[in-house]
């Protein structure tokens, strides 16, 4: 057993609630929990799909429960929050230089929102084209 007693700075558990910047940071990180849950729901859907039509229908029926709708609304809001934060960080990640000049942040962010609109519309068209 080590006799060493390193100093550990006290950190209150609610440190992230005292400053809007940190609260937003924690909401962004926390969105991961519900998005994980959504992936698990889909993974379960693949499992039910593999079991046949009745199992698949039972999975679909579960999704119509009011609590499921509420959960998915929450997932949607947090997923969109992730999208917004991801796009606002995009210029820092892209760091594009054209003819020795750094591309401004705004066109990169707007480009991402245009791409989001296109992928969303295309996805809806594909899904609705049964």
């Amino acid at each position, binding site marked *: 057993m080590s006799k060493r007693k390193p100093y550990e700075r006290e950190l209150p558990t609610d440190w992230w609630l005292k400053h809007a910047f940190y609260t937003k940071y924690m909401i962004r990180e926390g969105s991961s929990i519900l*998005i994980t849950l959504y992936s698990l729901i889909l993974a379960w859907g693949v*499992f039910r799909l593999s079991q046949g039509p009745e199992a698949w229908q039972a999975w679909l029926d579960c999704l119509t429960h009011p609590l499921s709708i509420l959960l998915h609304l929450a997932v949607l809001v947090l997923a969109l929050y992730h999208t917004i934060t991801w796009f606002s960080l995009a210029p820092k990640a892209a760091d594009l230089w054209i003819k020795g000049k750094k591309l401004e942040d705004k066109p990169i962010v707007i480009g991402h929102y245009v791409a989001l609109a296109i992928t969303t519309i295309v996805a809806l068209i594909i899904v609705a084209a049964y």
Partner: protein
Amino acid sequence: MSHSQHTEPKRSHEPIFWGLFGAGGMLTAFLTPVMVLVTGILVPLGLMSPEALSYERIHDFATTWYGAAVLFVLIALPLWHTLHRIYHGLHDIGIHRGRDIQQVVSYGFAFAVSVFVFTLLLQMF
């Protein structure tokens, strides 16, 4: 102290997880909202026909090689993003003990679910 001229830098496995984190984050940003909208809201509320998610349609799609690939990526990749964030989030909320075990459990979870989905898709093929 002697300095060898040929010291190999110790390689980190972080770039692999960082790459999966980035790819998963990108996919989540662009496609998760519309996926949640369709499977969790529009179809369950009847705002979109249940035909969109009928057994025949989804089963036919899931049993093609490209459909299986699309479903695998759409379901598994976000997990490599979210579990990376959850792992680092544990530090933020003050859980410092057993960081390496936390890492194994976090990425192991993403890996396990990926294998689960991959195996099911392969079995249906």
